[in-house]
């Protein structure tokens, strides 16, 4: 319990730091968003009115305090471009991003867990070397290159999947599945590469443990020992890595969503940067970072729950 409370409290200064950094950073953006919004022909009066409306005339610390006060009541401001509330834009964009993240996670686990287990169970075999090579290649593969190649072969040449776009799952489940496949593979491959490595390392540790030797000495079949006894314990460190990766996925989605025109938080961020839409960029970056912090927190807490040694130490 003490461990959980300490870990949860440690998030508070980090969250405040995130707010300060994301606000200060974006307030430094060169170019005036008002000029970008009204165009070069805007009258000084119109510019002044809009600057006052968005409080751009006030000093930075005052603007931050005002922004932070609004943030505490869930008000992230309004988009300079569309006038829509930023929170609503961010929440809307989070849905496709979460769907993409979960689909990528599923793909990565389906590939990585069996590959990692087989690699460890048949150490120094051709299968082991192949898995190591594939995981290293997967780690080095730039996701946007993989995305372009997937579009080239599976979309343009074979015409199996659409090259871009998003269909809500409630409207057309089959269409949604077809649209999510390529971006999910793009993100899933990089995740699978690290998970494969971690599963192999964790399985090797566990396979050398005394209780596994005992199980083997009792005459249990090797396959059963590997998949039933060893994998269950090896999955504990893998869970941590998967959780951390889910957080890091927030970075990968920026590029993937841009390539596949996926209307998630990554695309929202990039579009807002080009439109110099301060509040949206701030809101989107902050929301992604906060989600990242909470995923890491949840991973730590889950790890503490899964590993009895950690509970005992606390």
């Amino acid at each position, binding site marked *: 319990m003490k461990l959980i409370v300490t870990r949860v409290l440690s998030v508070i*200064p*980090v969250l405040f*730091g*995130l707010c*300060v*950094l*994301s606000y200060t*950073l*974006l307030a*430094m*953006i*060169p170019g005036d968003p008002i000029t970008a919004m009204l165009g070069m022909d805007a009258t000084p009066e119109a510019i002044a009115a809009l600057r006052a409306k968005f409080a751009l005339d006030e000093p930075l610390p005052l603007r931050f305090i005002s922004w932070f006060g609004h943030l505490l009541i869930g008000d992230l401001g309004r988009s300079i471009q569309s006038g829509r509330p930023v929170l609503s834009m961010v929440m809307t964009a989070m849905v496709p991003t979460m769907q993409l993240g979960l689909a990528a996670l599923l793909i990565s686990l389906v590939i990585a867990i069996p590959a990692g287990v087989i690699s460890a169970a048949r150490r120094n075999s051709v299968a082991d070397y192949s898995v190591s090579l594939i995981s*290293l*290649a997967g*780690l*080095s*593969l*730039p996701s*946007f*290159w993989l995305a*372009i*190649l997937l*579009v*080239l072969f599976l979309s*343009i040449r074979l015409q199996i999947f659409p090259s871009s776009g998003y269909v809500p799952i409630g409207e057309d489940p089959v269409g949604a599945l077809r649209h999510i496949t390529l971006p999910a593979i793009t993100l899933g491959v990089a995740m699978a590469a690290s998970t494969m490595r971690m599963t192999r390392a964790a399985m090797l540790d566990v396979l050398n443990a005394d209780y596994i030797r005992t199980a083997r000495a009792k005459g249990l079949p090797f396959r059963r020992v590997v998949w039933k006894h060893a994998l269950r314990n090896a999955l504990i460190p893998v869970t941590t890595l998967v959780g951390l990766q889910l*957080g*890091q996925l*927030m*970075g*990968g989605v*920026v*590029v993937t969503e*841009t*390539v596949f025109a996926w209307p998630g938080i990554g695309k929202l*961020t*990039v579009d807002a*940067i*080009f439109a110099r839409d301060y509040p949206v*960029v701030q809101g989107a*970056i902050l929301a*992604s*970072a906060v989600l*990242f*912090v909470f995923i*890491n927190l949840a991973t730590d807490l889950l790890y503490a729950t899964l590993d009895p040694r950690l509970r005992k130490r606390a």
Partner: protein
Amino acid sequence: MTTAPASHSLIRRLVEDSRSAFGMALVSILVLAAVFGPVLSSYAPDAADFMATLAPPSADHFLGTDDLGRDVLSRILSGARVSLLVGVISVGGAVLFGLPIGLVAGYLGGRTDAVLMRCMDVLLAFPGILLALGITAALGASLTNTIIAIAVINTPTIARVTRAQTMLVSSLDYVKANRALGFSNLTIMTRSVLPNALSPVLVQASLLLASSIITESYLSFLGLGVQPPTPTWGSMLRDAISFIDQATWLAWFPGAAIFLTVLGFNIFGDGLRDRLDPRD
């Protein structure tokens, strides 16, 4: 009798391991391409030839041309220079700032450690590419700002690794003895702790080179990195999307360049870790 320096012995051991040697070979190709690029290709990277637009690979243009008739090989070689420059300087910058932060935090501990590490935690709390996007958006897209952005996102990683190793070394008897002898904190940190805390930092720096090159290519791909006319692998891939059904070589070659370079640094970093980092 003379003994070979430790660095020579390390290089020999890396070369003897076939996997590390492969990584070193890939990295060496990148360095050679970056240094001798202009000599290796007979075309300037930004020289347009409107009579030879979207030409497939041939004897005249080994890797074909792009939509403006620019030689793809020359642009990839020029891009190698940008990738290497951004990778090396940004990781160097991260070491320049992260190393002293980690050293001071790990050695002094207490409040200094808490304040410095909470600042690093905030930077680590941002997904790397998003922080880099925010920084380049704030400072403007350019080569220098790309380097700054990547150095900033790498600094907390170097600081964390240095801190962990410093804490480990600081608890050793010889450091305690130095303290008892009355040496100043600065002297102990720089002369006794730092030399023995460097190996994991070196390993981490080599692995960060790979991620820095990928981050640079991401930023260029999104149009927020190094700006035209300077060719970068990321921006070449972005341009390739428009012609993907007519000129596949525009996507194949820059992507392969990034992949092989990052693979080289990853393999090299793995090999270095196997030999230098006692924790592994």
